[in-house]
């Protein structure tokens, strides 16, 4: 009987496929009724082996997933979400997600492929087109602008529309576009910005700043003409934030961008980057009487989240440490992305009007640029851990989105046996389908790794002598699973590049059902706006 059910399902699929072959927008004519099929013989459980559906775990798991999904008939009304949490993995393309999923699973002693990152359990997901207003493959500035403002702009530009010209201060006037975080502040919600990159880096900056040049992070980075024309550096815009009562939480790296050049960094002893004499860290505590500034993990852990209402944390002079180096590689100590997310939610949840929180895993991108997959995967897992914290702490009236700004030219290739170490050399399967006894090899007889890059600094391994015989290094001689190993690249570049294909978006909570199919990146703002009625709440708060 169950065999018949499978056949029926296949016929249905076939019919759907045929229907899809009709001309665009027209329903095809109904075909002639086919001959009556013969009734298949009934399988006998455990006897003839044909009734395998009852015992096959793949079949049962798939069936279970569909059963659960069939219960999803949600149609949330506008404004149903009280809170929004937006997670962005910088450079977290789909191949990164797949590899990180396997990496995390293997770290837990499993095969890996069956593992799911925390957000992969979300009920809704889709694909996001990431091109910017002027480039097929974008950088983080226009992509995050699209996510938090609802408009696409040109590369290098932060929360200013594409009417502006990069690096031309005068072109920004009148073209600044309102961000979700600004709307939330106007609406009386609490807001937070968290990143493992510098807080002034393009992705976090797009939530609170407007700049025609992503590199104008401190005034010393700006040309005099731009300063004279009235453009403001990004760090100062966080402190001078004009809406609502200002962001309640701002945590990440980039300390020296907030310090004057007359002061030295408490951890490294190097001078600050500000030429204007402003110490933005002290300005934060002056501006917010209930505010605090911390720069290491011990200070961070001692913050009383009941009494501190505005928290600025700057844990590195530039980007924070990679997750792989965070515990042993940092003298002063830094909180993890999950710890920052947890404390931020403790603070933000105290506002009955709701909150908007953006959390960025900012260093996935940097590890990929360096051609170092292990660190990119570690930071992706760290983002997954932070999302898990949010799932546990956020109330049901919270829309949680997890997405990426863009992808990287990162590949998972070859035909490795299931459970093969994701950072390791490819070991395929033999004729019987079991693990092969030797590594797979290229046309030169040399082994290769599953993970690689289409371009980047991993080409040919420089001047290593092993490169001369085969035009590829002999990876038998290298510790390819080491965290410091740099994967091979096809095209030699000093820095690996972004990629232009779609990224994923996962959604949970009120309004999540809007996240489906293939969408433009700027649509994500509109999802958040619909779900939480940001514009409506902001307008109401102004009346």
């Amino acid at each position, binding site marked *: 009987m169950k065999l018949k059910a499978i056949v029926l399902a296949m016929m249905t699929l076939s019919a759907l496929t045929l229907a899809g072959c009709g001309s665009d927008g027209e329903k095809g004519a109904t075909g002639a009724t086919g001959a009556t099929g013969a009734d298949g013989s009934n399988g006998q459980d455990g006897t003839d082996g044909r009734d395998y559906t009852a015992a096959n775990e793949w079949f049962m798991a798939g069936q279970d997933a569909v059963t659960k999904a069939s219960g999803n008939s949600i149609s949330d009304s506008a404004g149903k979400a009280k809170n929004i949490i937006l997670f962005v993995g910088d450079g977290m393309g789909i191949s990164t997600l797949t590899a990180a999923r396997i990496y995390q699973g293997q770290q837990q002693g499993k095969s890996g492929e069956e593992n799911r990152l925390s957000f992969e359990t979300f009920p809704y997901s889709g694909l996001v087109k990431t091109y910017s207003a002027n480039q097929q493959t974008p950088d983080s500035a226009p992509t995050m602008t699209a996510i938090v403002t609802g408009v696409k702009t040109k590369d290098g530009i932060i929360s200013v529309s594409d009417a502006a010209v990069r690096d031309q201060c005068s072109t920004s006037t009148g073209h600044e576009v309102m961000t979700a975080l600004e709307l939330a502040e106007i609406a009386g919600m609490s807001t937070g910005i968290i990143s493992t990159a510098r807080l002034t880096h393009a992705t976090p900056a797009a939530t609170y700043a407007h700049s025609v040049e992503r590199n104008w992070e401190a005034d010393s980075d700006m040309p005099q003409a731009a300063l004279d024309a009235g453009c403001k550096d990004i760090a100062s815009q966080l402190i001078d934030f004009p809406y609502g009562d200002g962001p309640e939480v701002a945590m990440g790296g980039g300390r020296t961008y907030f310090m004057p050049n007359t002061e030295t960094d408490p951890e490294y002893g190097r001078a600050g980057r500000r030429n204007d004499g402003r110490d933005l860290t002290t300005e934060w505590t002056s501006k917010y009487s209930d505010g605090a500034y911390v720069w290491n993990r011990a200070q961070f852990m001692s913050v009383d989240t009941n009494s501190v209402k505005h928290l600025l944390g700057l844990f590195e002079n530039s980007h924070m*440490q990679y997750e792989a180096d965070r515990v042993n*590689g940092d003298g002063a100590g830094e909180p993890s992305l999950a710890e920052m997310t947890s404390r931020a939610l403790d603070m933000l949840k105290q506002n009955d009007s709701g909150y908007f929180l953006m959390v960025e895993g900012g260093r996935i991108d940097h590890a990929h640029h360096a051609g170092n997959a292990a660190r990119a995967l570690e930071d992706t897992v760290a983002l997954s851990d932070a999302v898990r914290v949010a799932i546990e702490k956020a109330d049901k009236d919270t829309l949680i989105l997890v997405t990426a700004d863009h992808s990287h030219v990162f590949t998972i290739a070859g035909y490795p046996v299931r459970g093969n170490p994701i950072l390791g050399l490819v070991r395929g399967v033999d004729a019987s389908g079991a693990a092969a006894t030797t590594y797979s090899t290229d046309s030169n007889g040399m082994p290769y790794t599953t993970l690689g890059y289409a371009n980047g600094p991993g080409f040919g391994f*420089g001047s290593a002598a092993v490169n001369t015989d085969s035009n590829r290094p002999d990876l038998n001689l290298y510790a390819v699973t080491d965290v410091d*190993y740099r994967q091979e690249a096809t095209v030699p570049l*000093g820095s690996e590049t972004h990629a232009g294909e779609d990224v994923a978006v996962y959604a949970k909570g009120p309004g999540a059902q809007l996240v489906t199919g293939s969408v433009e990146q700027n649509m994500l703002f509109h999802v958040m706006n619909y779900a939480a009625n940001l514009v409506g709440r902001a307008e109401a708060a102004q009346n």
Partner: protein
Amino acid sequence: MKILPMLLLLCPALVSATEFCPDARPTDAWGVSYQLSGDKQGTLLLLRQQAQTAFYNPQNQIAEWWRFDNPKHPQFSRVFGEAKRRIDYYAGDLRTLGVRVSQAEIESFTSEHLRQVLTKVPQSSCTTAEAYEGEYQQVHYQLLWSTTLGLPLVLETEVGGKVSRWQAQQLLTNDTVKQQLQQWQRYQRTDFADVGDNDQDPFLAKMINQGFVEHSEHAAYDSHGHPLGNHGH
């Protein structure tokens, strides 16, 4: 017994270096000018100021600049004098590039380990120097080590018949070194982690296309005898 005549033959080359034989280590900021000959030609300046050490090639105006103010967080910059630009590498960046850093090895131009594996040989002209010679990891070395400066006065390597020789020529003054380091401090700087996001910057685009961390300019050697600056796969 057979090795003795060969060592004696080597001695004249090392002795000639003792024309520059400092008997005291300068304080504060100082440096040493090296003349490169053989497979690599030109001049190399080693600059020192407290926890800072830089290797500067005045011909192409490229420098490698290390700061060990916080020894757990060595900071490295590659300086491009012609463009007045600087690329800053933080500890995490160096790890992603597989660069393992030893302050002692950077500051002494070569590793203590190298001296340990080479054979000490007699030399007479410079009383504040020790001579070493020998083979290590397919490289033949001759080293004249200044015990006052903690630096080589001569470092000669031979690999596959190619000989490269670094020979100290003179000390650099306090002002020369300080001015140079202060000048680099004012250059426009970019974090290495951010280079990949800036392909529209003509200078950085050039760096992205050409690469710029692969080959060490100064040929200092790590504790394994590998040139510092090589990435560690």
